[in-house]
């Protein structure tokens, strides 16, 4: 157990160092992959420059005016801002950046959701194994 916890700590430290080393604006190319020109026109350059997500969950979330949104893993806030625009002044969008194991994060999201609340997230799935040279490379953990 202690070894597993040390490994988790090592992953967390590696991920934090990787994010700290990113140059401002480096996410703009990623943003253009996932968001339309119209969506990008709705958010400030600062949020576009830190867009490091792997999808556009707001496009799928079918948000309605007045709803409350918690953007977990908000990063630079591009999805938080888009969600805020969809729910309007009568709703609320809150961005929360976090780094935790997926199962723990899901449990916490479940805890804070209201009954009948919905989760909508973008992520990457991998079928099969990656070569050990890739899977064991620390710089791949953050990505």
């Amino acid at each position, binding site marked *: 157990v202690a070894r597993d916890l040390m490994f988790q700590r090592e992953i967390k430290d590696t991920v934090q160092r990787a994010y700290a080393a990113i140059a401002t604006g480096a996410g703009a190319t990623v943003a253009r992959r996932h968001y339309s020109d119209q969506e990008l026109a709705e958010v400030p350059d600062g949020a576009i420059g830190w867009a490091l997500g792997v999808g556009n*969950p707001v496009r799928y979330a079918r948000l309605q005016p007045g709803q409350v949104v918690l953007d977990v893993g908000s990063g630079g806030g591009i999805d938080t801002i888009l969600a805020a625009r969809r729910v309007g002044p009568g709703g609320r969008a809150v961005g929360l950046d976090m780094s935790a194991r997926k199962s723990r994060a899901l449990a916490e999201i479940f805890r804070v959701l209201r009954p009948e609340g919905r989760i909508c997230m973008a992520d990457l799935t991998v079928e099969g194994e990656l070569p050990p040279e890739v899977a064991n*490379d620390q710089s791949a953990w*953050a990505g």
Partner: protein
Amino acid sequence: MAERVFAGKLQRAGFADIWVGGHRPFGIDQAALYPLFTSEVIQVMRETIPADRQDHVATGVIVKARKPG
């Protein structure tokens, strides 16, 4: 993490009506757009991942689920 494993984690957390869609291939060229991947690990990917898999190393997905009332 495989898609079915991901869905299983959601189910164990208590979520219902789990939906996975918006599938989009994620290859090495897409990974290279992300500053989180160093040029060294991108090079390792190009050298170790079979050529026929390099344009679909992972899959971008949208996952939706509901907390039962």
